[in-house]
């Protein structure tokens, strides 16, 4: 074989392998989604949304778990978003240089990938133990800690994209800096910041590990944030690991619900982001 042919053959093999890797990744994605649809759709019916989690062997739904997930996700987002936005604002508007901003940026990126189970442990030691019992508040706080770094990161990135000319024009009119930030920069970056919040919601909607030792679980419907509360991820974990067929079926139904909610949130977030990119 000539050198030329050998080089061509090698090129072909390497490119075929990279095509194969991409194909495999996409195949796994579709396999997972396909399994979820095949197992999850038959498990879903009206009772899933109206009845609470059953004891093994009887009929029931996931109403209390869905309620708990929604409530804790909302609470966590409401707590985490302002903290994240203010920190992101500091990094972008006041902290382009300086040691504090540099270190905060670094720590934030580490928190972004920190194991969520460690955050659950932290909330257990810092909140559950002093309070003396598991509670939905503790679960919400654990989730909020996961929201913060996501929002910080996207807020900073989005504020950095706002053209300096816009800020300078506002300053030239004599506006103080806080007014420039709140009324000009935020407005210009609002779509990007919303994208960040939606990505954060998508991230925590399926988080299980931090809820295991904080919100725990509750077999019954409960609206008390000060008590353990059922939530979809922990219910899926418990039901899927159980030997009961009807529990496993409900777990698949819950898994389908969570995954498609998250995928839809992700797709909307992306559309928001690209839409705001087009209008600039």
């Amino acid at each position, binding site marked *: 074989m000539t050198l030329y042919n050998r080089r061509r053959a090698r090129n072909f093999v390497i490119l075929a392998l990279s095509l194969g890797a991409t194909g495999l990744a996409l195949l796994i994605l579709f396999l997972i989604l396909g399994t979820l649809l095949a*197992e999850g759709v038959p498990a879903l019916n009206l009772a899933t949304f109206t009845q609470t989690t059953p004891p093994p062997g009887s009929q029931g739904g996931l109403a209390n778990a869905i309620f708990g997930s929604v409530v804790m996700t909302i609470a966590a987002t409401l707590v985490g978003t302002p903290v994240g936005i203010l920190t992101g604002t500091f990094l972008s508007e006041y902290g382009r240089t300086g040691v504090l901003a540099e270190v905060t940026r670094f720590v934030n990126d580490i928190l972004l990938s920190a194991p969520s189970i460690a955050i659950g442990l932290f909330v257990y030691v810092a909140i559950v133990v002093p309070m003396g019992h598991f509670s939905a508040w503790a679960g919400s706080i654990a989730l909020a800690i996961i929201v913060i770094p996501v929002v910080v990161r996207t807020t900073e990135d989005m504020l950095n994209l706002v053209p300096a000319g816009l800020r300078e024009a506002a300053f030239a009119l004599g506006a103080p800096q806080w007014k420039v930030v709140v009324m000009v920069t935020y407005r210009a970056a609002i779509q990007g910041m919303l994208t960040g919040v939606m990505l954060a919601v998508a991230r925590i909607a399926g988080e299980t590990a931090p809820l295991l*030792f904080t919100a725990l679980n509750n077999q019954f419907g409960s609206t008390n944030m000060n008590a353990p509360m059922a939530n979809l991820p922990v219910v899926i974990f418990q039901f899927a690991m159980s030997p009961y067929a009807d529990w496993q079926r409900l777990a698949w139904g819950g898994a389908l619900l969570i995954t498609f909610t998250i995928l839809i949130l992700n797709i909307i977030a992306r559309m928001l982001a690209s839409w705001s990119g087009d209008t600039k």
Partner: protein
Amino acid sequence: MRRQQLEDMLFRGTTKLFAVGVLLLLGAIMLALFIGALPAIRAFGFTFLVDSTWNPVKQIFGGAPAIYGTIVTSIIAMLIGVPLALGVAIFLTELCPPSLRRPIGTLIELLAAIPSIIYGIWGLFVLAPFLQSTVQPFLKATLGEIPGFGILFSGPPLGLGILTAGFILAVMVLPFIAAVTRDVFMTVPPMLRESAYGVGCTTAEVVRNIVLPFTRVGVVGGVMLGLGRALGETMAVTFVIGNAHRISPSLLAPGTTISASLANEFTEATGPLYTSSLIELGLILFFITFVVLAAAKLMLLRIERQAAK
């Protein structure tokens, strides 16, 4: 004017306060875990790291099996996931028609959006039976026959175990590594790439001799980021690892990881020493991932500066 200055200071102060708060959060996490782990640290000292006893009845705990499982599953995940992720990144930057780049890139990123627990339930009901019936007997019949090395693939194919957990983790870290690698591949100046094509390089040669050397630090950073994820991944692993507190030479055998032990046992732990030992495992996990992620971040910062030049 005075009022406006005051308001400005207030606003700046508030944002700064929250930034400091985020900074303190990391310290608070470490401190809280350390305090929680203190009874176990006092009781077992450094032997905790090497002892493989896990006896809740006698209240003797050693973290070695969990630490071993965490590291081995992550290594398997890297061995499988990194080549796949590099392949995806090469495909997306060099091979893919530009009109398909975004849709395929988005689909790969959706793989990262699927929650851990979904990977777990899929791994338990779909992947594990598949591995048990086809892949594991095949591995036993081929690699398992090699003297010495074969011990890694000995024992009955259970479906659940260290290897399965490694497979699932490989799929989970793939999108993270692929996304970072694709982004750093994009930082290669077009001039360099075009010059290489100009002297007659094939695409594979451009990747090997131009793109990879130029982005080496960034690629390693991306791999470390994936490693950080793999080490701390909880739910998916908990479903498929089999949860056995022992160190087996075979990769087909069930084991445990730090995060899986925590997920399984924490709420059922009886006695303060049991809980404290589990918290110490969490502290060790947090420390390991902190070091890995910090290294990843430093490497990625270097390539950002290089690109900015």
